[in-house]
């Protein structure tokens, strides 16, 4: 082994295999070992597939569902709408289980977390198996674990653990010799490296950097000149020189709430939509000020306890497909929810929006989720929006959707029950002898 600084850090990345499809298979045993695909909002395209579905057709991901429908039916593929409530609950449980293994965790996305392992004096391959088996037993989700001297290496290790069967779901790059690591890296394309997108891959290939090992050995200064400091940092990270820290999160639920009583009673849906849209955008602004992203949203409306009518205060909470702080996405969700809970003939006096399951800014996450594809652009838009509103506080720059009659109804015809968040949807036993 090469001589390395004694205080080199160690990180792990724990990532759920086919998170959405796996959640569905736990609670509906009939889906186990079956090809299952999960569809995005409005059943638009495939956003997740079980390993059985992947084996059948690798190219399902992100393709429009209507194109695949017939072919999938022939192959016996079972399609489901996204059940965000279920995935959000299972994601929370996943993080809770991981917190048994290290005090320092960064929740990176709904299905992956970084763990700081520096100073944990254990055979990490054995420890990784223990983490994997515990998650599987406690909450039923299959995961892979990768270890490395930087977050970039941990992520790469996780990729290897996931794709190369002989690793049995755990890959520890930190205990391998440099030769062993290099041999693995030589076989991987640069696109497997955290933060390297398709365009960057093309450019790297043109420069002759066509595998991870070549990127690792590239001159950092040249990379900075040709690309940017981010990729320069990636090169350093590939060499085991850690530049990215664990961004810890609070496991306890934090919330941001925006609500207000109306000047007069409101009984029209479009006015309520305007109100919750305003609160959504207000709460989002505060979310962005704290560099946080919300995983769940709660919308509530209520009539006045002083009115003669019986008290009516419906509340609706649901999980968002991926953590977001985008006003447009959250306002859309809020409007959808208020339509769901609205009841005609009631004079409402108050409305509000609460954002919860907050996680810190996720940094380099790319567009895994259909609706996040314009991430960079929308971040820029949000930033501009915040700046304008700061300068002109009395003329809020707001969404046109506030108060308009745009139809935005999420279609989730194929959604499974809320097995873990709704009393009436709990998984139910049958009497075997009476079948």
């Amino acid at each position, binding site marked *: 082994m090469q001589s390395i600084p004694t205080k080199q850090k160690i990180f792990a990345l724990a990532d759920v295999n086919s998170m959405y499809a796996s959640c569905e298979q736990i609670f509906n*045993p009939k889906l186990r070992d079956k090809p299952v695909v999960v569809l995005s909002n409005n059943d638009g395209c495939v956003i997740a597939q079980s390993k059985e579905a992947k084996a059948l057709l690798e190219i399902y991901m992100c393709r429009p569902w209507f194109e695949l429908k017939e072919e999938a039916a022939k192959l016996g593929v079972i399609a489901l709408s996204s059940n965000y409530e279920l995935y959000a609950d299972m994601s929370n449980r996943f993080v809770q289980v991981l917190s048994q293994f290290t005090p320092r965790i960064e929740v990176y996305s709904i299905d992956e977390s970084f763990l700081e392992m520096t100073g944990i004096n254990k055979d990490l391959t054995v420890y990784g198996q223990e983490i994997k088996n515990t998650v599987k037993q406690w909450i039923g989700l299959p995961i892979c674990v990768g270890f490395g001297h930087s977050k970039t290496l941990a992520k790469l290790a996780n990729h290897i653990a996931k794709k190369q069967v002989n690793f049995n779901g755990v890959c520890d790059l930190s205990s391998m010799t440099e030769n062993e690591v290099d041999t693995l890296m030589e076989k991987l394309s640069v696109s497997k490296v955290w933060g390297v997108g398709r365009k960057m891959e093309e450019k790297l290939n043109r420069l002759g950097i066509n595998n991870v090992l070549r990127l690792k050995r590239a001159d950092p200064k040249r990379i900075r000149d040709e690309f940017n400091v981010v990729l320069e940092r990636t090169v350093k990270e590939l060499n085991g020189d850690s530049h990215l820290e664990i961004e810890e999160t609070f496991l306890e639920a934090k919330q941001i*709430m925006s609500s207000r009583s109306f000047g007069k009673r409101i009984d029209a849906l479009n006015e309520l939509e305007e109100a919750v849209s305003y609160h959504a955008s207000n709460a989002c602004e505060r979310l962005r000020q704290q560099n946080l992203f919300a995983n769940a949203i709660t919308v509530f409306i209520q009539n006045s306890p002083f009115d003669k009518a019986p008290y009516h205060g419906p509340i609706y909470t649901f999980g968002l497909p991926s953590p977001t702080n985008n006003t447009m996405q959250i306002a859309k969700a809020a409007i959808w929810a208020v339509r769901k809970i609205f009841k005609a003939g009631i004079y409402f006096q108050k409305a509000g929006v609460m954002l919860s399951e907050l996680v810190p800014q996720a940094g380099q996450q790319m567009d895994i989720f259909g609706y996040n594809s314009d991430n960079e652009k929308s971040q820029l838009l949000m930033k501009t929006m915040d700046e304008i509103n700061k300068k002109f506080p009395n003329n809020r720059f707001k969404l046109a959707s506030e108060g308009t009659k745009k139809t935005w109804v999420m279609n989730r015809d194929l959604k499974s029950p809320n097995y873990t968040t709704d009393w009436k949807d709990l998984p139910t*036993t049958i*009497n075997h002898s009476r079948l």
Partner: protein
Amino acid sequence: MSEIRNLATNSLPLAYLLGAAFNPPLLALPLYMGKVSAGRTTGFASPAQDYEQERLDLNKRLVSNIPATFFYTVGKSDDSMIDDGILPGALMIVNRALTPKTGRTVVVVLNGEILVKRLYSRAGVVELRSMNKAMNYPNIRLNEGQELIIEGVVTHAVNSY
């Protein structure tokens, strides 16, 4: 003015008092809060204050491992465990982290169906037994190579009457 009168005479919905917080914390009223003003002295602390306890929470009593605990419902026509007090429609608290030992009540998946049974395992023979003498449901003995998935151990069942 009418609002003030209403305040005094009507009991208000809890949600209003709590400022419409969603999922508000339990409004566990302590036995006594504050000081008793007695004459010119600064006051005595209530003698009850030392005995203040948190309100009993069923979650704490019934759920020992939060992430690994899942709730299941006993099917309406599933009377297979009634001798154990697990009635049709009961809510079951299932801990996936516990090791299923022989004699324990478990939730299993067999041939794609969710069942609740007593687990018996001896000398390599695994059996799932119903607990209903009157109906005398046959035991399910697992054949070699047949896959049994134990979802978790039932730690409590809650029946409603």
